[in-house]
Structure formats: C-alpha cells, structure tokens
C-alpha cells in the first residue's frame, strides 16, 4: 500500500501533470492544428483529475504548452476569481510550479473559458480556450461521420440556411455566443462559447489554441489569421453588448455583466473582465457607482 500512497503525492506526478508520451501526442496535434487553421485535429484526450466539461481540453493543451518560465493566467467568464478558474490555476501551481498572475499584460499563457480579455494580446502570448462542443455543425447534424464529410467538401450550406431561418423568424441572427466563424476563407470553426462581442478580437497577434477534452479535438488559429464571423450582405454581423458603461470603471467598450443588486430588481453593469476593470480603477477611472482603486467596491 505504501507505493500506492506515494503515487498519489504531487511530487510523483510529472511536470505539468501529463506524462511525456501524452504531451508529445498533444503537441503533434497542436502543430498540425496551426498548419491547418480552424480544422479540428482528433487527439486521444486523457482523463484528467477534473471532470469532462470543466476544462479538461484546455488543461491538456496548457499542460503541453507550459514551460517553467511561463506566467499563467486563468479566467472563467472573464474573471480570475470564479471558482473553476481558481481551481485550474491551483492545479497548475501545484503540478507545473509556474508563476501565476491576474494581470492580462503580464501573462504569457492565458487559459480561458467563455471570454477573450479586453486588453489587446501581444505576440508574446498564447491564449488557450476551453471548448465544450468543437463542431460548429453539431447542432445541425449530430453525426461526426457526416460533419467530417461536410468540412472535407467545404459544404457549409446548412449553416447559412440555419442563420437565414433565424432572420426569417426573428428578424435577427439568433446566435449570441459561440457564433460561428470562417477561418482564412476555408474552415467554419466554433470560437467556443464566447459572446459574439469577442469575435472580432480573434484576429490578434497572439497564438490561439483550442482544446475540447471530452470531444477529443484540438484546433488552432495562428496570429494575424483572417477570422470572419458568418453573415449576409443585408444582415451584417454585429458584435453586441449591453448598452451601458461599466458602473465601476466607466468603460464604454468592454463586455458587461448585469448584476441584480436588490429585491426590487435594481441592477448594475460591470466589466466581465475583472483585471481590465481593476486596472482602469487603479488608473483613476470611476464609473457611476464605483470608487477609484478600491478592492471590489463591495
């Protein structure tokens, strides 16, 4: 029993948890993903010590990418202090011993769920997305054998029909997040469930890597790659957000969370990107309800 007990201590696990053979397999998939932007590379995802659907794909990609010199940031819903972000950050502190940060500008590897940071990313950064359903056509055609053919033949008519039916029924494209994009004029890709507000940011200087653990897919977008949100000439794509400024930092151009503050349904709007908001407040920006530079105006 002593051997088994030892096997469960942190020191017994490899750098960044995964064994080297698993990392090699993931690394090869990442390189092919970069070489074929937007194409979903199958990979033999491993069981991780957190549940499928909770970021196992992103965690495996980060584990394969991290070096001891990296400084890592983990966000969920744009926030560093959401429980799952805290849990994943702790996992890498324990298993890879890397430094972590909440500052977007200081991070070299950022793992995210559902948001792209507001601060423009640079060439020295890698953004790793957690992806639940990597196949943009999945809800139109549940069969992998069929969707694979559709990607091979570049047959994306079904997607346009769906978007057009939305317009016929609602007068708008009724997709607010996980809004499909076309990468470098070839593959239709799921940007992960980011709000469509974030779509235009995907043409960026940083490397974007996507990991879907349960669905066993990895894909990538190299820097400066064309990423176009699908639309129609008469119904152009519009990134949208709440029509307010942040009540804490006053930002006009950041994605906002709507927070219900009292029983009467009173509400406030605050930046979903907590680092962006904090940095602005530290810099003296004040919103309708905020105080400058204070730790959470709670």
């Amino acid at each position: 029993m002593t051997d088994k007990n030892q096997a469960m201590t942190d020191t017994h696990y490899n750098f960044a948890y995964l064994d080297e053979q698993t990392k090699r397999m993931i690394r090869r998939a990442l390189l092919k993903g970069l070489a074929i932007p937007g194409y979903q590379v199958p990979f033999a995802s491993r069981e991780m010590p957190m549940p499928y659907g909770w970021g196992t794909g992103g965690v495996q990609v980060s584990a394969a990418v991290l070096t001891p010199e990296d400084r890592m940031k983990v966000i969920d819903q744009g926030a560093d202090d959401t429980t799952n972000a805290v849990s994943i950050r702790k996992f890498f502190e324990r298993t890879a011993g890397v430094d972590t940060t909440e500052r977007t500008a200081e991070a070299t590897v950022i793992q995210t769920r559902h948001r792209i940071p507001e601060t423009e990313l640079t060439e020295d950064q890698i953004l790793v997305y957690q992806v639940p359903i990597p196949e943009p056509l999945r809800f139109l055609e549940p069969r992998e054998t069929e969707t694979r053919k559709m990607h091979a033949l570049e047959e994306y008519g079904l997607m346009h029909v769906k978007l057009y039916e939305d317009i016929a029924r609602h007068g708008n494209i009724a997709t607010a997040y996980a809004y499909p994009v076309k990468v470098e004029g070839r593959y239709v890709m799921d940007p992960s469930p980011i709000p469509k507000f974030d779509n235009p940011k995907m043409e960026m200087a940083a490397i974007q890597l996507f990991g879907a653990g349960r669905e066993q897919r990895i894909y990538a977008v190299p820097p400066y790659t064309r990423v176009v949100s699908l639309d129609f000439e008469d119904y152009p794509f519009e990134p949208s957000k709440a029509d307010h400024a942040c009540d804490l930092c006053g930002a006009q151009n950041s994605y906002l969370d709507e927070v219900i503050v009292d029983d009467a349904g009173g509400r406030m709007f605050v930046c979903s990107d907590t680092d962006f908001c904090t940095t602005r407040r530290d810099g003296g920006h004040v919103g309708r309800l905020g105080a400058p530079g204070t730790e959470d105006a709670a």
Partner: protein
Amino acid sequence: MYVAVKGGERAIDNAHAWLAEERRGSPDIAELTVPQIREQLALAVNRVMAEGSLFDPDLAALAIKQARGDLIEAIFLIRAYRTTLPRLGVSTPVDTGEMACDRRISATFKDVPGGQVLGPTFDYTHRLLDFKLAAEGETPTAPQAPAQGEPTPRVTDYLNRDGLIQPEPASDTTPPDLTREPMEFPANRALRLQSLTRGDEGFVLGMAYSTQRGYARNHPFVGELRIGTVPVEMDVPELGFAVGIGEITLTECESVNQFTGSKTEPPQFTRGYGLVFGQSERKAISMALVDRALRWKELGEDNVGAPAQDAEFVLSHADNIQASGFLEHIKLPHYVDFQSELELIRRIRAEAQAAQAQEAAE
C-alpha cells in the same frame, strides 16, 4: 454594494473540508475500512473496476470510500488515476476457455459438458429483506466440492462444430486502443467492444433492453455465461516466453442469436459477445446484446433505425465519465453567455414591439 457572486479559494477550501467531514459521517460510528469494502461490497468494487478500466480491487474499494459510495464518482477517481500510470507492457490475450469457473450456465442446453454451475448468484433468492443481516457477527459457510481440474469447454464450440453458428475467426492483428487513440467512426468491432465494456452499466442495460422490446430485436439466448479467474501472462522478450503476472476475475457472456440467412448464406445462428472485469453479469449480458445489435451491417441485416443499431449514437454516449462531466458542467457559471442571450432577446422583443406599435398607428 457590488454583489460578489464569485467564489474564491477560501470557498473551495471550506467546501472540501465540509465534504471530508460529511464523508466520514458520525464519528460515533466505526470508520469503514478499505478491506471491508473490498470484501463486503465486492459487486460495487467490480463495477468500479469494469467501468474504471483498471483491475485493482484495493484501489476500487478506496475510491468507493472516498466517493462516499457514489460509484460514478469512484469510477472517475480510478480513471483519472489510471491515466497517469506508465504503460510497461501488454499482456498476451487472456484465454477464457481456461477459466477456473465459479459460475457457468447455458440457457440453450439442458446440460452441457462441464455442467451447469450456479455459483454465488442472486438468481433464485427471494428478494426479502434479511433482517438477520442487521445484527452483526454472522459468518456463513457454503458446502464445498472439489475443484474440477479440467478446463470447461465453451458451449458455442458445439454449435460451431456443426456449422450452426457463425464462426468468429481468430486474428493476430493488434486492436485499436480506445484509451490511446481518439474514437473514430465507423468503429470496428474491437473498438466497439472496448467502448461497451467500460460503458455505463445502466446505459448499456437500457440499450440491450430496447432490443428485447423490438428496437432491432435480435432474439438472444444466453448461450453461455461464465464467471471465474483467468491467468494473465506477459511476453518477456529477454526470456523468450510468457510469464504469469497474476490473475483476474472476468465475466464472459456469449449470446446465441437467431439469423434468418440471406440469398448467399444458409440460416445460421450468430453471436454477441460481452466480457467485463469482475463478477458483472448484468453488464456482460447487456454488452452481448448491444454488440449483436451493432453488427447489423456485417451480418447483412437491415438498419431499422433503432438506437441500439446506431454505433455512433451508442458509443458516443456510453461513457458515464464523459456524460456526467458534461452534464454537470452546466453548474458552472454561464452568465457571460446568458447575458449575450438576454441582450439579444431584449433587442428582438423591442424591435417586434416597435413594429407592432407602428402597425397600430398606421
């Protein structure tokens, strides 16, 4: 004034501490030991080993203890542990024909060489709560018989000899490994069987049951069900021969299914196959039925559109670790996506109301 809906590190630590306390339960009650679970909850241990894909009764018992008896959680613990283990080698295929059977029955013959051996089964127990078990200290003993030295012949071999059942040719090709390569469709039979043997018992049971109720009915009989131990051997290149590294308990089920024949083939029985770690016979029989249903194409049958015939449907949804993880992830915050939908629906409603108002005004 800013309502902090976001948890933090301390919230997580506190939740873990509370969980540990709840797991232990009342300190007035003696703590369960891992050997107690291994010995007295052996069928739970078997299920955890089967769906966790790791034969280690001690670790499975530990996982059950840690998971507070939640077997899917225990299976998850075992899977996550298993994936970190280095792969030192590959065993030679186990020979279930050499099994030392504790239980062995055939529904297709009244008697068979080797005999019908009921073994430790619930089958003919009356399901009456046994209140004597509530009192402690009982050590029941069963009558003993000398072990049969001979290997038990397989029932389907008798049918095979007469050409009455479709043969399953032996093959030396290395099967794909579900735990090392991504699932790929169409999946061959080896891959399907791997997926089924670690699939959720309830899911595989439900799929099998659906075939019995007419969704791709395949008229199964339990040709043979056997439970017992088999030796596991590994080739050691330095020695040039295989050495025994231990033994494992397996449940094997071969179903015998009707086949009407085709233009080119005379009528013949066909089979479905189930093989599961430990004593797990409900799962093994279910697996055999679903395996048989998934073979419609190679046996030249019609696809009647039944769920159990749809390999992509069955295999994509059989794994309870994938399923429960994704199901439960909707507990995670989704407020960013919800916010984007909120704005969209407000906008669509506003546009619709404006249009109505304009109509009314005209």
